[in-house]
């Protein structure tokens, strides 16, 4: 029991102080029928660190890790190189094992970091301000939709067909219960995103349009016109960014008029981790701040006039407002936000732009290489580090075949939309700085073989 400091002697002394004869006396309020004499049955007993490490190591080795294969998956989670110092910093006990900074006098480390994070995210997304993180991109996206409803007092949201289908699913699930009305649709395998169609559909009942940038197929398009169209109808434009590295090369949604920009910060510093924990981003314009969900850190002064930081505007939150809160969110993703913030600090604008440039150039090279493979058609005209190809056969079995050969070829659209036959031949390929020339060759020859 290496984590338990009490000795039996301690327990005896303490029971005496408490006035209990046995530990069972402290559980008197548990009804008889719910008590056990010993450990709960059918479960193993405690194990040594070595034994546990061995067991978990065995499970770990049953997975094909991305570093052991040519790797091209994206669609909302991206593999980038994370500097070793990021992990060092997030393992500092003072960050790792602190709680929410409810006592600001002894939590300035977390609070200042959150303030820096908010500023970095706001600048990256091109917005006035940002909160200190949400669970992940998909839940942040839903929070944006409900915020738009609160702001506009309208219940209809139009979701782009280029929005990540998991994000759409989350919103659909929630809307079923809240009564929000969502318009959604399937994407088409064309070079152009559905921006024009979105513009057509905005009406006086529309609370917001939700558009992903770059979208699920990797396509990018200018959001300015869409923003103007929204604003003309007093609706909000919500932009979703799942690959923040893109914003080292591409105009930010906020710059193009998006009112709320949400996103997934995982690509910067957090790592793949099989999907979680990730880092939801939430930014908006200053005038909307009091409708924002999630934690906010603000600058203030202490009793001696020194600058300091505190959680603020908590009158929006559940622990104060209870059933009238802007969201039921309590936990955020601060440790992941720290990782992201450290990575952004290491990169700086210079490094982020270099990283983005390399991602884009490598993706272009890969697209050009694959375009020459018989049976592969590149769908995109525009993209950042991710693009879609249409294969001459169904993509999902091709991906599985290549995985058997040790190549993780990308995400088949059939995995994301199992019922959409029109998408079945689509394959989304992400190319980050971690991809080598040998990796590209392995993908190319793998596809050549599979499509022959």
């Amino acid at each position, binding site marked *: 029991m290496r984590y338990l400091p009490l000795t039996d002697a301690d327990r005896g002394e303490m029971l005496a102080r408490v006035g209990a004869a046995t530990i069972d006396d402290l559980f008197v309020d548990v009804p008889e029928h719910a008590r056990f004499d010993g450990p*709960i049955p059918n479960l193993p007993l405690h194990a040594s660190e070595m034994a546990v490490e061995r067991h*978990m190591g065995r499970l770990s080795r049953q997975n094909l890790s991305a570093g052991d294969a040519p790797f091209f998956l994206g669609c909302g989670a991206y593999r980038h190189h994370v500097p070793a110092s990021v992990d060092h910093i997030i393992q500092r006990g003072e960050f790792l094992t602190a709680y929410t900074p409810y006592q600001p006098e002894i939590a300035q480390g977390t609070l200042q970091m959150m303030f820096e994070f908010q500023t970095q995210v706001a600048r990256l997304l091109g917005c006035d301000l940002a909160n200190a993180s949400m669970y992940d991109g998909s839940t942040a996206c839903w929070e944006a939709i409900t915020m738009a409803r609160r702001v506009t007092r309208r219940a209809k949201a139009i979701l782009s067909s280029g929005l990540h289908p998991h994000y759409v699913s989350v919103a659909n699930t929630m809307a079923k219960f809240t009564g929000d009305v969502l318009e959604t649709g399937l994407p088409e395998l064309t070079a152009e995103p559905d921006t024009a169609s979105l513009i057509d559909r905005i009406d006086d009942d529309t609370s917001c349009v939700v558009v992903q940038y770059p979208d699920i197929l990797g396509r990018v398009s200018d959001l300015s016109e869409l923003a103007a169209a929204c604003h003309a109808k007093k609706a909000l434009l919500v932009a979703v960014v799942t690959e923040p590295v893109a914003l080292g090369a591409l105009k930010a949604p906020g710059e193009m008029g998006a009112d709320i920009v949400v996103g997934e910060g995982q690509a910067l510093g957090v*790592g793949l981790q099989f999907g979680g924990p990730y880092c939801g981003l939430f930014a908006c314009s200053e005038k909307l701040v009091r409708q924002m969900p999630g934690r906010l850190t603000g*600058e203030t002064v202490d009793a001696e006039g020194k600058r300091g930081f505190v959680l603020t*505007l908590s009158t929006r939150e559940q622990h104060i407002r209870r059933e009238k809160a802007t969201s039921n969110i309590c936990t955020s*993703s601060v440790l992941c936000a720290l990782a992201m913030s450290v990575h952004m600090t290491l990169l700086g604008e210079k490094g*982020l732009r270099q990283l983005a440039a390399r991602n884009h150039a490598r993706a272009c090279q890969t697209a050009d290489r694959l375009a020459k493979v018989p049976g592969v058609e590149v769908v995109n005209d525009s993209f950042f580090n991710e693009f879609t190809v249409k294969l001459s056969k169904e993509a999902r079995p091709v991906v599985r075949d290549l995985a058997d050969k040790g190549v993780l070829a990308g995400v088949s659209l059939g995995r994301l939309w199992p019922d959409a036959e029109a998408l079945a031949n689509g394959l989304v390929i992400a190319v980050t700085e971690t991809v080598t020339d040998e990796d590209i060759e392995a993908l190319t020859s793998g596809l050549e073989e599979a499509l022959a």
Partner: protein
Amino acid sequence: LEEPLIFERGSVDVTGVDIEDAPKVASRLGGLERNRDIGLPGLSEPETVRHYTRLSRQNYAIDLGLFPLGSCTMKHNPRLNERVARMPGFADVHPLQPVDTVQGAFAVVDELADWLLKLTNMTSIAMSPKAGAHGELCGVLCIKSALEKRGDTERKIVLVPESAHGTNPATAAFAGFKVENIPATPEGRVDLEALKARLGPDVAGVMITNPNTCGLFERDMKAISDAVHDAGGYVYCDGANFNAIVGRVRPGDLGIDAMHINLHKTFSTPHGGGGPGSGPVVLSEALAPFAPLPFVTRQADGSLHLVEEETVGEDHPDSFGRMTAFHGQMGMFTRALTYILSHGADGLRQVAEDSVLNANYILRSLEDVLEAPFGPSGPCMHEAIFSDAGLAEGFSTLDIAKALIDEGFHPMTMYFPLVVHGAMLIEPTETESKGSLDQFIGALRSVAGRAKAGDETLKSAPHFAPRRRLDETQAARKPMLVWKDPVQAEAAE
């Protein structure tokens, strides 16, 4: 030395990474090149490490001392958990990899799920909720789905005790319910008779925390469950305080229908300054069909199968849908499972016992100097509650909390639950030694004594922290939520 902000120290021309040059290609960015400055300062690696190391030292943390935040279960975070979570097979796998290539990941999900079900004696589990409040939402949506499925759409009320966490009413409201309070008995428990009286065809269910936030086990839990079920409602249990009973009492034996489990409380995954959390929800047979996507099932051949949108139609037609992208907090699952395997069924039982013993030790060692409103109600569970009754005129719980900082401790939870005036909710957890508790008790006795004697220096505490009391009013009145270059800010005015 004061630590400046990165915006004051860094420069957009500095970077702490080296990146290979980009090969020259024609850009395919759709004409959307970001030409304007982003404004992200960079620091070299040495400066970065130093900046964050210095910042970290302004934090208090469980690695530095007792962190007795009631209802937050700040226990030791084993370092083995961190090592395991970083194994490449867990840390470096993509959520959309072909299922055959991530069988080990699903095995973790499956093994953890199995433990949680056995520890709670429940039927089914939803693993994907991202945190406790998300888990609450999951449970409440299951209830709502069940009601809809049986066509019982008139049940709009969810009953919640006044002492509940704020997330409970917020969640119920988010799911479209109306919230009504359940009264408590003077001894700090749900008033069963009052509850029974309120039940009826408009009540969807109750949300009850057990052990409750007054630190007491809801002795009548089974009777409450039976009454709610008899009246056609469902019972949601807030599992935030599961640490007091883990391995010793199975909530499923008390008739509940859904309960979330905070992996970052009971199962020692790191809090990290406010998250990530993870909130799997165990479900009764009645609610199991409505569990959200995705989930993992074990096939006859032992392989693990992922149920997502694709197959849900046939196998699980009543699932209420997806709550998040991907599969949930995998990084927390590996840590929690590592912790659970380390403790085993016997160790977890000891966790509950020691956490309850530690809390009672604190309760009984302080009740002569601080008013313990439920002290006479019998033993507490894993947290002890005190009120501000008896402090000198003008002295508050806040003063006590801030004075504790000067004694080298993190304060307890203040002003929660709302049912106790000036509440101080103290949860030591099982990972504190007797020596550590004695130090804390000594410090709190001294502070309480000074507060009763009217020692004015308390009111300006803390004196020895990185900061004195911070002006929260100013922060809220004129929010400064991002850094603005003072030169530019001035120019703008």
